[in-house]
């Protein structure tokens, strides 16, 4: 079946604010869908979009697929139930930094720990938008909001670090304005078996405008971000003249051609390495010291929860003495009254 992005647009009016980064992500996902269907031989009715509460969680209404708009924080749990009940479905969770990392933090890390085969798109705008501007678990330290008029005194989460902490198998990052890259990481996350988390750096034009602009503005983006590709050396910059090396046990930015550095000295990205050490350093990279890592940072193979459950069911049904209720009811100690 050949699809176009139009096939994935629902008849519902999109109600995000004009200029909100969510529009661009919706467009990227709708563009990724036909490619995913083609590459994985999926049909549209197999897609289920599940969400929690927040601006981003309205997403399922705008996709012409099966969709479940849940309650605050619980999307990972609902998505887990959908996937375990019917592993043939391709399940996508759309969530935000408040939804996934504050009220839903527990479900988020446990879904990842189980490696349930769902795709989680985490919209990180570092603010509570739908409740009109309170700080979130990813808000920068010191940020002034309605609930932190003197500035926050809380350290923010780095979502990727949580993914690694939960022994996650897939983590990617993109920016709302990077439409092509977003489309590409969505396809790669769909191809991954297991919990695939994509962190989207997204702008909230009303309550946290330009929160990512240090790295997302068009004129500086190439110099302040690096798009990682598996098997390729870590090069970035407008002129493709910068790179990353391992200096002792830290990552360092270098200029190719300076101080005797050549391309062969650079780190080569290995997304499939099970040891999370380098992935952790890449996830932590932040402006202004280092470029922010984009693309697929980690993608390691492991058996999924739903596969393991399905295998146990198949095995139990093959080997058990109990095949139906009447047999179960009569199993064990029984006696006859005559």
């Amino acid at each position: 079946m050949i699809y176009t992005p139009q096939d994935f647009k629902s008849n519902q009016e999109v109600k995000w604010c004009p200029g909100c980064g969510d529009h661009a992500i919706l467009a990227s996902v709708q563009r990724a869908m036909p490619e995913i269907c083609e590459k994985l031989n999926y049909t549209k009715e197999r897609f289920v979009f599940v969400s929690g509460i927040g601006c981003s969680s309205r997403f399922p209404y705008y996709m012409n697929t099966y969709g479940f708009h849940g309650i605050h924080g619980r999307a990972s749990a609902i998505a887990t139930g959908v996937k375990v009940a019917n592993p043939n479905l391709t399940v996508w969770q759309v969530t935000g930094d408040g939804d996934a990392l504050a009220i839903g933090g527990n479900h988020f890390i446990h879904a990842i720990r189980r490696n349930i085969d769902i795709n989680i798109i985490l919209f990180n705008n570092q603010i509570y938008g739908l409740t009109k501007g309170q700080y979130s678990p990813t808000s920068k330290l010191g940020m002034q909001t309605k609930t932190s008029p003197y500035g926050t005194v809380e350290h923010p989460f780095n979502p990727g670090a949580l993914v690694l902490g939960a022994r996650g198998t897939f983590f990617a990052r993109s920016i709302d304005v990077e439409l092509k890259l977003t489309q590409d990481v969505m396809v790669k996350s769909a191809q991954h078996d297991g919990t695939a988390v994509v962190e989207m750096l997204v702008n909230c034009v009303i309550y946290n405008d330009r929160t990512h602009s240090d790295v997302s503005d068009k004129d500086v983006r190439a110099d302040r971000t690096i798009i990682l590709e598996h098997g390729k050396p870590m090069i970035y910059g407008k002129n493709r003249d910068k790179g990353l090396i391992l200096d002792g046990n830290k990552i360092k930015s270098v200029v190719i051609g300076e101080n005797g550095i050549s391309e062969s000295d650079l780190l080569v990205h290995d997304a499939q390495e099970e040891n999370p050490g380098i992935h952790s350093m890449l996830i932590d990279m932040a402006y202004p010291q280092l470029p922010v890592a984009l693309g697929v940072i980690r993608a390691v193979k492991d058996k999924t929860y739903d596969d393991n459950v399905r295998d146990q069911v198949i095995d139990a049904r093959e080997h058990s003495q109990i095949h139906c209720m009447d047999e179960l009811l009569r199993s064990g100690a029984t006696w006859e009254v005559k």
Partner: protein
Amino acid sequence: MQHKVIDTKEVVIRFTGDSGDGMQLTGTLFADASALYGNDISTFPDFPAEIRAPQGTVSGVSGFQVNIGSSEIRTPGDFCDVLVAMNPAALRANAKWAKPTATIILDADTFDEKGIKKAGFKTDDPIAELKIEDRHIIFCPITSLTKESLKDSGLDAKAILRCKNIFTLGICYYMFNRPLETTEEYINNKFYKKPVVAEANIKVLKDGYNYAGNIHAIPNTYRINPAKLEKGLYRNINGNQATAWGLLAASEKSGIPLFCGSYPITPATSILEELALRKDLNCKTLQCEDEISGICTSIGAAYAGNLAVTTTSGPGLSLKSEALGLAMITELPLVIVDVQRGGPSTGIPTKTEQTDLNQALYGRNGECPIAVIAAHSPSHCFDAAFYSAKYAVEHMMPVMLLTEGFLANGSEPWRIPSMRDYPEIKAPVITESEETPFWPFKRDADRLARRWALPGTPGLEHRVGGLEKNNDGSVSSDPHVHERMVAERAAKVAKLADFIPDQKIIGDENGDVLIVGWGGTYGHLYTAVKQLQEEGKKVSLAHFDYIFPLPKNTEEIFTNFKKIIVCELNSGQFANYLRTLHQKFHYHQCNKVQGQPFIVKDILDAVNSIL
């Protein structure tokens, strides 16, 4: 002393000891042996929340009461004929349950100065202090006899001490003329990898049995003939196992795989454990990270087309409240099992109560009616779970099943049903619809139920969720749409009354007093009403399984009695509920909130006081 064999219809035995003494196992083995022998039985495990509370203290005492009879047994018995106490603390905590005529068997070795003091006695004579000198008290040196019996067994000292409960069981088997075979079989099966342990346990069982026969301290032994039960194949079943199996039965009848997302919580946990065994019946269980995930994974599974259930107890139900609203507004089939325990908050987790009724009926935000069904005996949990699932699926709505710790852990013989005798469950699953795009909240005329369009079905793509929607599935905050959808969902639940059976009465259809009950108090209320009827009193019982909606003939039944008394293990939650729905009647109350079941006398006194 002249040894007598007394034929008796009914005997109540209470095994008590430290929570590490194996009293639950002792009681269960005794109950199983009696059931297999053909007696009717009813059991009541009564244990503390701590796994191993400080040894020898009252807080660590664990008990197991079993009532065995040659005729119909409906309760575990109020007071016991035989009390076994493995230490002074067990005696102190349980002496009040011994009948004036009771025999009390004590482990003499534990009644030393230290043990007596630890149990909190003020004098060195516990018997006098408890004023139980007139009971028949047998001091057996159970610990030392067990040590002697097993000194050549090859077991170490600690392992030998663990066998003293089996020695005690042997004594009881002698007293009650129980066959040893079923227990020997159990021991051999349990320890088939450790023949030394199996051999030691069987030896100590027989030694206990023979000891009791030799000492002449036991005045009488009892013979309780097999009960005249209805013909058929029987098994012993407890409430949680029956609940799990009822859900599995509904899965088989509907052809829909069972999914259970749950979080361990006393006393509901063993439902999840039982279901986890049943991957062979295509049941998937997910032990979740918390209670909320338990219900939310189940909601997800229901959306994807499974027969979904989540099991919990009171505090867990509180945590699930918001998600209950989600299940209700998305109109998905879901069974929520609440095995009630003593609350509020953590309360008394291992004790029984009926205090979650208000929470089950009302504990949600917004207008959120949810059907409530209650189980009334351990084996009835099977039917209650089956029908909860049937109505959830056929009416496309969450159904709350209330059971209680008393039912969950209690067991009784159960005539094994045939699945042939259970009705079909027809899920309203569709593969196509007349309208495009599909309207998820279009209803049928009979049940007002929506149709179940499963993800994966081409052409029926749709969105559901917690936001208010119109019948076509579009999000709406239109005041009139909201009011209409609220009314439609409520009407759907109310409509269930057309499908549930009429309320039955035990006794005449009119009279002086109608006893009204619900849930796990059935056995006690039934026993009480039978006794009152035998005394010639015009008393009947209406025991409700269907709580919300109530059976349609409820008011008609109430009209025919001069007085109504509502008996329940809370402060009057069902009585107040009836007051709101059927206001023209006056409701007397009989309540108990002690974490303990009624005793029959509670009911007799309450009814006699208004007769």
